[in-house]
């Protein structure tokens, strides 16, 4: 029996396959396609202390080999989320990671504290969404700001903390180090790359927000490179993501240094993708005679 278990900050996951925040809701919509019990973890859509309406439409646009989104972190607020989404997720035998967003440090802390007494396994702190004007990415593009918010959150958080990093920075290694130095238990990367699309016939931006975050297979090589660089810079575990749609993609990220992986935009392309990645990793281990999945983490130096 091949061992697909992984461990992040003392939390054991049955396999390294997660969902990328914002692409899977809280799993309700995808349970028609995927048995959530098969997943290592469900990472929820970002949730703030109060409801956020998000951006005007159009919010999504297709680009070559990927897509742009500028949803703007629409969410129902933590109270509704705890009553509805967390209760829904509790019925499954999978780990639950809640993605937390905010405009100010206080916003983040309010959510983190409310989640303290729940069964949530880990927190993922979104300091990297490129689509909201206040907060979010402002904390994720400067080392000192990232360090400060990480420290504040670590003081209050009862669950292990994952800092989700932006690729829209000069040196991902420095950002990873800042998160580690401030006590983050893990990091996840990459969030989306800021992009733009123009409708040349209407002479207008396709997205109402003008810019949007790019995701999908076209960004995978950038994400693999950044995961590798972050893995060289820090000792804390990394959750890798960016264009993953197959087991081969997932394994590539793990070999670059990721302990776990997340499927994002590819859920839209193939709603069965998460379960297929889980199965594909098992098949790969069988074929390559790998006993423990942890053996391949960072194996390519």
């Amino acid at each position, binding site marked *: 029996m091949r061992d697909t278990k992984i461990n992040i900050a003392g939390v054991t996951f049955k396999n390294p396959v997660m969902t990328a925040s914002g692409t899977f809701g809280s799993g309700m919509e995808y349970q028609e396609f995927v048995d959530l019990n098969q997943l290592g973890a469900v990472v929820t859509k970002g949730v703030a202390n109060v409801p956020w309406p998000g951006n005007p*439409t159009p919010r999504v646009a297709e680009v070559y080999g990927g897509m742009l989104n500028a949803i703007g972190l629409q969410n129902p607020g933590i109270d509704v989320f705890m009553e509805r989404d967390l209760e829904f997720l509790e019925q499954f035998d999978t780990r639950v990671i809640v993605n937390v967003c905010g405009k100010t440090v206080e916003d983040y802390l309010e959510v983190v504290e409310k989640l303290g007494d729940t069964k949530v396994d880990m927190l993922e702190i979104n300091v990297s969404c490129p689509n909201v004007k206040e907060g979010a990415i402002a904390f994720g593009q400067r080392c000192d700001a990232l360090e400060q918010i990480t420290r504040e959150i670590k003081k209050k958080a009862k669950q292990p903390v994952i800092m989700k990093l932006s690729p829209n920075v000069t040196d991902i290694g420095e950002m990873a180090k800042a998160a580690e130095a401030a006590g983050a238990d893990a990091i996840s990367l990459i969030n989306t790359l800021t992009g733009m699309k123009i409708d040349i016939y209407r002479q207008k931006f396709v997205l109402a927000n003008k810019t949007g975050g790019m995701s999908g297979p076209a960004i995978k090589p950038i994400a693999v490179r950044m995961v590798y660089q972050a893995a060289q810079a820090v000792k804390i575990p990394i959750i890798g993501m960016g264009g993953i749609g197959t087991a081969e993609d997932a394994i590539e990220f793990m070999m670059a240094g990721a302990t776990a992986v997340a499927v994002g935009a590819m859920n839209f392309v193939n709603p069965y993708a998460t379960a297929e990645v889980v199965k594909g990793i098992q098949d790969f281990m069988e074929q390559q005679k790998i006993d423990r999945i942890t053996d391949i983490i960072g194996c390519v130096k």
Partner: protein
Amino acid sequence: MAGKKKVFSKVVEQKELAGGIFDLWLETELAAKAVCGQFVGVYPKDKSHLLPRPISICEIDQEKGRIRLVYRIQGEGTKEFSSLKTGDEIQILGILGNGFPVEAGKGKRALLMGGGIGVPPILQLAKELEAESHVVLGYRNEELFLKEEFENYGKVSVATEDGSVGTKGNVMDAVKENGIEAEIIYACGPMPMLKAIKEYAAKAGIPAYISLEERMACGVGACLGCVCKTTKIDHHSHVDNARICTEGPVFLAEDIMI
């Protein structure tokens, strides 16, 4: 809302109805549960175009397990679909969305309006509706696709933008010119037309069920890409945003802000 799937479906036949408008019959298990006003996501084979294209169902043949899609070439994805031949296989995601409330129109004088590529989703509705139906169709020019098929299910009036056939103008101009009165409205078409219908229905004090379109990614309610402002706090978002792919695409006009 049971059992959404991504499945292979077989092309029964495809032909061009008018310039750039294609008529595609697919054999699919999804037909069994489809209702009028719902849609499917059609996946291009070209992997540089990843997302499913939302296309409304024009007709459903449950007996033969077929659905009919009538779409306009809009970009690379739909261009690829237009080359599909009998026997080809294509992946579709469905069945998506809520569909038209057929029961609401039972025994009433119903006004069915379709504008442009909003004409096709009205056909299955016209077929199913047990009402005194008056269908008003809006086209760009004299290429009146599907018009004759509607004549089997009610009285048909036409508006064309260039005035080549029927009333010159849009569907609302045709409604006025023909003095059409109704107790309920069903419509699909471009946003300016839907706005005019919403206004008209509010003045007339009658319900209008309108089908919206928006750029979508997931099609199943997860990504929150295709939302529409609502006039009341909805149960899902709590921020007055309904998902067109899931709570829609058909809304009661008075419930949404357009």
